[in-house]
């Protein structure tokens, strides 16, 4: 409750402070640098949006304060090349809708005069928001939307740090091949299930492509509306198709609803490999043990701390600040502000062209990020991070544990999935 009030207050305060009449632009530039952050802070995805927001807040704390961490800008207060200027985030609520993404991005640039933007979690929203910033010539760094098309638009001002669904879809099939080889499991058929907006439908396309390439038969290809109140007809189709493996790209409400319906109607494939919704912090508390065994594509899990001490250190700070462990969402959203601030610092300026040039020269090493990547470096044409890769986590005893790539696995993968009755 306290947090919500503070958010409202911040938004109101930020819009007041944004009035160009109140602050001389030159003075403002020396003290704080504004970046805009777009997230679904209310509406269906509000719990997700707040989670992303926490990740961004953590990153901004690290940039503005002094921390003994191997993360860009941690050891100094603010941006050293700009006289210690602090980063100030102007929040914008997309309510989870593409039209608001565009309107809010325009507002951030024209009224709040932000020098860069981050967000917006849902690919469909990121798409419209980044169209607005592209037109207004403001850099946009995204680390939480995964639709491949976002970096296929030849945009000059748009950069993506996190892996896209093409990579993730590829990983899912590579995992199946590994599974067949290493664990002597037989998998022949897959069913594709995905929500029908930008995110899900592109996942579906990529999965079709890789299924063909890897030689798996697609026995069902089902898209659905993520805000559905009832999904029994979708589950009925899946039962009829009887696949070995289900691949599901969902948001949170539909992930919960499908899990309950799978159990209720007794849909029990050998395995389920999923995306997004099943990783939301709201998912496990809602379904508890019914979530066990589900496999999810991921970039982050707390057990990475075993091989990456940075994960433990950042999570400790995070836990102190918010009272909960860092989730995958928070960890993904954490990176965009760091990459953007690092570029602004190297650009030594808030000029858009200078920032874009610095972004294209970004070279952050693997031990400075929270994921098992080689680092951050953008492809000169698509401006997608060439080092971004995915992992798969599995829910075991209601915890997310890394199970693939097998060499980075914290625990052995459970396969085939146990019958519903024995998932405790």
């Amino acid at each position, binding site marked *: 409750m306290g947090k919500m009030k503070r958010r409202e207050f911040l938004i109101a305060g930020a819009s007041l402070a944004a009035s160009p009449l109140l602050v001389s632009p030159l003075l403002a530039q020396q003290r704080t640098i504004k970046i805009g952050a777009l997230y679904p802070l209310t509406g269906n995805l*509000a719990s997700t949006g707040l989670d992303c927001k926490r990740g961004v807040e953590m990153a901004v704390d690290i940039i503005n304060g002094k921390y003994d961490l191997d993360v860009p800008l941690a050891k100094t207060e603010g941006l050293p090349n700009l006289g210690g200027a602090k980063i100030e985030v102007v929040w914008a609520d997309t309510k989870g809708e593409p039209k608001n993404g565009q309107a809010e991005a325009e507002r951030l640039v024209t009224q709040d005069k932000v020098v860069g933007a981050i967000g917006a979690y849902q690919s469909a929203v990121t798409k419209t928001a980044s169209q607005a910033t592209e037109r207004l010539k403001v850099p946009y760094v995204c680390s939480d939307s995964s639709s491949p098309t976002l970096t296929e638009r030849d945009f000059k001002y748009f950069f993506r740090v996190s892996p896209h669904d093409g990579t993730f879809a590829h990983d899912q099939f590579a995992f199946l091949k590994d599974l067949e080889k290493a664990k002597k499991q037989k998998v022949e058929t897959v069913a594709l299930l995905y929500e029908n907006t930008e995110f899900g439908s592109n996942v579906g396309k990529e999965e079709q492509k890789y299924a063909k390439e890897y030689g798996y038969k697609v026995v069902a290809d*089902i*898209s659905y509306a993520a*805000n559905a*109140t009832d999904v029994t007809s979708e589950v009925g189709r899946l039962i009829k198709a009887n696949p070995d493996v289900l691949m599901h790209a969902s948001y949170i*409400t539909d992930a919960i609803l499908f899990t309950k319906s799978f159990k*209720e*109607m007794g849909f029990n494939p050998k395995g389920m490999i999923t995306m997004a919704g099943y990783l939301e912090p709201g998912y496990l508390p*809602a*379904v508890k043990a019914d979530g066990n065994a589900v496999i999810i594509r991921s970039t982050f899990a707390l057990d990475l701390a075993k091989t990456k001490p940075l994960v433990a250190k950042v999570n400790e700070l995070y836990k102190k600040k918010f009272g909960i462990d860092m989730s995958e969402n928070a960890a993904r959203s954490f990176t965009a502000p760091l990459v953007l601030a690092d570029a602004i610092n190297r650009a030594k300026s808030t000029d858009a062209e200078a920032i874009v040039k610095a972004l294209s020269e970004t070279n952050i090493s693997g031990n400075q990020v929270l994921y098992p990547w080689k680092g951050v470096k953008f492809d000169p044409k698509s401006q997608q991070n060439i080092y971004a890769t995915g992992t798969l986590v599995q829910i075991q005893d209601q915890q997310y544990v890394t199970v693939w790539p097998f060499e980075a696995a914290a625990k052995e993968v459970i396969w085939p999935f146990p019958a519903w009755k024995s998932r405790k």
Partner: protein
Amino acid sequence: MADQLLQQIVNSLLIGSVYSLVAIGLTLIWGVMNIINFAHGDFLMIGMFISFWLYTLYGLDPLLSIPICAVGLFLLGMLIYRFIVSKVMTGPGLAQVVVTFGVSIFLANLAVMLWTPDFRLIEKPLLSGTWTLGAVQLSVPKFVASVGSVMVSATLVLFLRKTRTGKAILAVEMNRESALLMGINTERINALSFAIGSALVGIAGAFLSMYYYIYPQVGGLFGLISFCIVALGGFGSIEGAFIAGILIGFVQTLGGYFFDPAYKYAIVFMVYLITVWIRPQGLLGW
């Protein structure tokens, strides 16, 4: 194949009857007052949260919180009518639309503020699990919710037909001026109908809370579908709303099963559009 078809028919009935109960409250309010209560979906959400908190804080099973949800929402409906809706009853039409819309936004945001936007589920309700009847999997809480919805709807129809107050409500619904001339206190009937309509959706909330997730925006699509059901059944017609609710359950479930699930809501709204095109007064409207 035939097994799945049977399963889908059962599922249609299960979801359809709950839709009916949600929509009946809405149609009652519309019939008596000619007001569309846009906060109807949010009332559903409040009902679900009452049930959730009674379970979480006092261990009260959702089955036992049904009467509490009914009374709670009855009072909430009464208060909102007395202090908000009645003020604009004589005002311009637009004000009547906007006022319940305002209540809707207020309630949803209040819920976010009080209870965070997180998703909740009642973990171990008394009724859980599934019965296997031949090839059909029957979810116990959904079945009970469905039977309960039919019973509550039938009780409402009996109440309207057999009691003096019920007949007074029907009289106001048919002709407000004549009812007034017959000595019926229409203001009291308004408040009562608004409260009963709210209580019905509160009961639906308690039923849904046995198996559905709960969060501040949960009322959104339920509200939208119930507007569609009310229009389809005929504005103000209880029986119409009941039949239309079941019908929408079938259209949604079978439409999703036989055609493309991505379009199931499109099919629902298409059926609605075609019906009002051919029969603008709805199935049982006059």
